């Protein structure tokens, strides 16, 4: 048996005969976010009744013709720009011919010879903070197939064509990936990028994103080994498992004196293993040729510029900016940019807070970031909500933070008010007003409370004065409790020190 050693770098598989390096390339199929299919007007909504979203074109009725959906083209170009890729101003669709009941035309319209997007790359960050650049060979547009359902009838299969003709981007990486963790990081980074761009919703459990996993193994310094392709793996975890299992299997086969055959394999999520689907000798001859029903896609620089201008700030740039300009830690920058919605929410709250306080964003960023990543995320997790439907909006949060910054609320009071905001949906100011939660900074009231605590604990006062400094915290706690948490902590500290020492 071979063991995976993940602690050391570079990643290797320890075989009986030595170390093996693994080489992975991923072909990610991402369903393009668009109202209509790639070549027909039928809806692409997920979860409709079977065959409810099938146009005459999707069903390949006699005489029906494809017409390109411009939105899908635009999304592919925007995605290409987001991976810094060459955009091909001239591309063309080809037919990939094979028979299957969920492929009504008898061919899939794809782009073999002239894809819409050429060479690009994506930077990935691993758990230990190291980064790597993974090459992307191409992105092409193609039609999705329908779905065959084999378990509804003893001898027949059913076909659902709702997905037939939906637009997919096939995003083909270079064989630059060297470990299961890198494969996972690549897919996660790609998913994040697609969601930022808005070209794919990345819902892997709905099949919006899935990957064909190409794996081979070799000894360090040797040329690429023979690869296998594991089809249609549909989660980051499964992709990592498929890479790991397949690499180990290949090492075992080779070390056992066998040979890897180029083949298509299937991943079994239950066991985390792969099994052979068809060998090279059974490979289809797809008889690709240019689709004569469609004209080449041709666009000018203006179109590309327009697509570029429509891109949001992308995750890598945002992370860098949060660190450099806002002074956030890599961790905070990472969690706040994980989803575009979160980053947008954070930025809105940040701007509102800075405006309320009349300060620069950099001055208040850490305060806002900590509250969002800590209290807000915690609350959302507890409530089972997404940031998009947070009971407290970014403006409301800014108001709360401003009340903290101007001394109206202490840290513990802010938490109290925040909880009340989550429950009631009321504004921080209203809650402060209604519940009298305003922080007390009046030294007279605080001195009175301190004196009462000191009077009630003469033994501890003696101990403190005798050198037990640690008791200071006890006195602070007692004073705060006596004032129902409303006392300004700074004032309590100052006055307590003065009265104890005095």
């Amino acid at each position, binding site marked *: 048996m071979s063991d995976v050693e993940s602690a050391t770098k570079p990643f290797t598989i320890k075989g009986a005969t030595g170390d093996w390096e693994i080489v992975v390339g991923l072909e990610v199929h991402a369903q393009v976010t668009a109202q209509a299919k790639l070549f027909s007007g039928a809806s692409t909504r997920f979860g409709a009744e079977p065959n409810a979203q099938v146009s005459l074109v999707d069903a390949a*009725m*006699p005489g*029906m013709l494809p017409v390109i959906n411009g939105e899908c083209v635009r999304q592919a170009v925007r995605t290409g720009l987001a991976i810094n890729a060459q955009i091909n101003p001239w591309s063309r669709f080809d037919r990939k011919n094979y028979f299957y009941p969920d492929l009504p035309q008898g061919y899939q319209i794809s782009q073999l010879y002239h894809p819409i997007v050429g060479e690009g790359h994506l930077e990935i960050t691993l758990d230990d903070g190291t980064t790597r650049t993974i090459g992307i060979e191409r992105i092409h547009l193609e039609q999705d197939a329908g779905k065959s359902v084999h378990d509804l009838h003893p001898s027949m*299969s059913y076909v659902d064509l709702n997905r037939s003709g939906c637009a997919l981007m096939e995003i083909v990486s270079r064989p630059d990936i060297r470990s299961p963790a890198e494969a996972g990081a690549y897919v996660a980074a790609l998913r994040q990028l697609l969601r930022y761009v808005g070209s794919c919703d990345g819902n892997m459990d709905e099949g919006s994103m899935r990957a064909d996993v190409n794996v081979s193994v070799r000894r360090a310094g040797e040329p690429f080994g023979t690869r296998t392709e594991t089809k249609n793996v549909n989660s980051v975890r499964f992709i990592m498992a498929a890479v790991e299992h397949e690499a180990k299997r290949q090492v075992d086969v080779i070390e056992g004196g066998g040979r890897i055959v180029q083949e298509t394999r299937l991943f079994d999520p239950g066991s985390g293993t792969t099994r052979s689907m068809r060998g090279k000798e059974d490979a289809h001859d797809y*008889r690709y040729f240019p689709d004569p029903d469609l004209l080449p896609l041709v666009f000018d620089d203006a179109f590309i510029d327009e697509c570029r201008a429509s891109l949001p700030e992308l995750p890598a740039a945002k992370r860098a900016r949060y660190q450099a300009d806002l002074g956030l830690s890599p961790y905070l920058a990472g969690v706040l940019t994980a989803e575009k919605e979160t980053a947008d929410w954070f930025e809105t709250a940040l701007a509102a807070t800075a405006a309320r306080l009349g300060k620069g964003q950099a001055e208040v960023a850490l305060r806002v970031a900590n509250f969002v990543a800590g209290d807000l995320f915690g609350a959302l997790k507890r409530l089972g909500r997404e940031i998009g439907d947070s009971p407290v909006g970014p403006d409301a949060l800014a108001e709360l933070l401003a009340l903290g910054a101007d001394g109206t609320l202490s840290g513990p009071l802010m938490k109290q008010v925040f909880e009340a905001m989550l429950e009631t949906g009321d504004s921080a100011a209203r809650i402060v007003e209604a519940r009298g939660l305003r922080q007390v900074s009046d030294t007279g009231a605080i001195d009175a409370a301190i004196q009462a605590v000191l009077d009630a604990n003469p033994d501890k006062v003696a101990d403190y004065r005798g050198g037990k400094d640690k008791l200071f915290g006890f006195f602070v706690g007692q004073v705060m409790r006596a004032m129902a948490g409303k006392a300004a902590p700074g004032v309590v500290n100052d006055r307590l020190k003065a009265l104890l020492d005095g």
Partner: protein
Amino acid sequence: MTSLTDLTLAEMKAGLAARMFSAVELAQAHLDAMAANRHLNAYIVETPELALAQARAVDDGRRSGPLAGIPLGIKDLFAVEGVQTTAGSAMLKGFVPRYESGVTANLLRDGAVFLGKLNMDEFAMGSSNETSAFGKVISPWKARGSDAELVPGGSSGGSAAAVAARLCAGATGTDTGGSIRQPAAFVGIAGIKPTYGRASRWGTIAFASSLDQAGPMARTVADCAHLLTSMCGFDDRDSTSLDLPVPDYAAGLTGTMRGRRVGIPAEYRLDGMDPEIAALWDAGIAWLRSEGAEIVSVSLPHTRYALPTYYIVAPAEASSNLARYDGVRYGNRVTPPGGNVHDMYAATRAAGFGKEVKRRIMIGTYVLSAGYYDAYYTQAQKVRALIARDFELAFERCDVLLTPTAPSPAFAFGAKADPIAMYLNDVFTVPASLAGLPAMSVPAGLSATGLPLGLQIIGRPLDEMGVLDAGLAIERAAGFTARP
């Protein structure tokens, strides 16, 4: 009074406008003629109720338009909503589309009356109408002194026979490599294939997508012009449709050849050319010269590669286009007991497709196969570009080209059992198809055996008007009045 069915389309328009007869009377006259001529097997489906209802609507004033009340036959390649549409194939027997093709929708918009669906070579693959699953169409013509039944040409053979036999005022045809022009020539009528992209392909069953073009077939050039104006036009459901205005061809038709240059391509004068065909061609040249045209000799050097190129490109596209006929969603399905889905495909397609269709699917599959693709398909595309370039260069020196339409008059059934011999019938029509050019056949004379012969005019891209004008000049000069 001559029979209503003998009128030209233009005369019918005038007669209807002058209320000399009603649209219902006109439709009924044709329905009667169809009933009396079923032995020709020109129609696969007759639609008398539909036709009479449409005609009544014209008479009532509920329908109008430039073709109001004109009775037409529709090649069975065009989807007509609610009417069986089969492409002449057993594969689609009983298939009734719930949609109307772009071309027939245009004709309906303009008030036309549909008499029925016309027989054709299966999936438009054939030059004799012998490949239809609904039986061969018989030409209304017979050679002098012979009782042998003759082919009407193909693939629009039903259209040709019906127009020639006065079973409709005009018909739709489609032309992939000559399927309008060759049958028109065989039965002594006119037919024009417009520039690729002029007529919508939406709802027309595909044979070879990069070549298929719809066009009209009628007894006169002017009638073709009327129908062409209606049939053409941009359709945003067809990505190869041209978004350009369509002239009123009938209104623009003059037949004037003065100042026009007519090119005579040297390469079309084949070795061993039928002397009758050569003589007809020479006559055509003389007619146009006497009409004031300048005759220039031009060269189309890659002509001899056109036929092999066509018989790679067209089957390649067909092999893919016909993959959808798999028995899964509509049409024929054969399920062998105990078989799996692949057995179902095989049995369905074995039973549903005829011999010629299978031959072309196999040729097309072969030329697209790994290892052969570059040698056949890629090479054919290169040659196709050279052929188009030949025409471009020739049109620098002339406005239209004049050639024979077919190398022979109509032949008897079974006369060209060798597929290669059959394919050679397309030798003059295929080059213009590969280049996407407008081209028409006009009846120009009779063979020694009394059979019609046609001359072909090929024009520049989008110059249907120039083609029709030259066609009209030939028509007038030839004074072709023979009828079956």
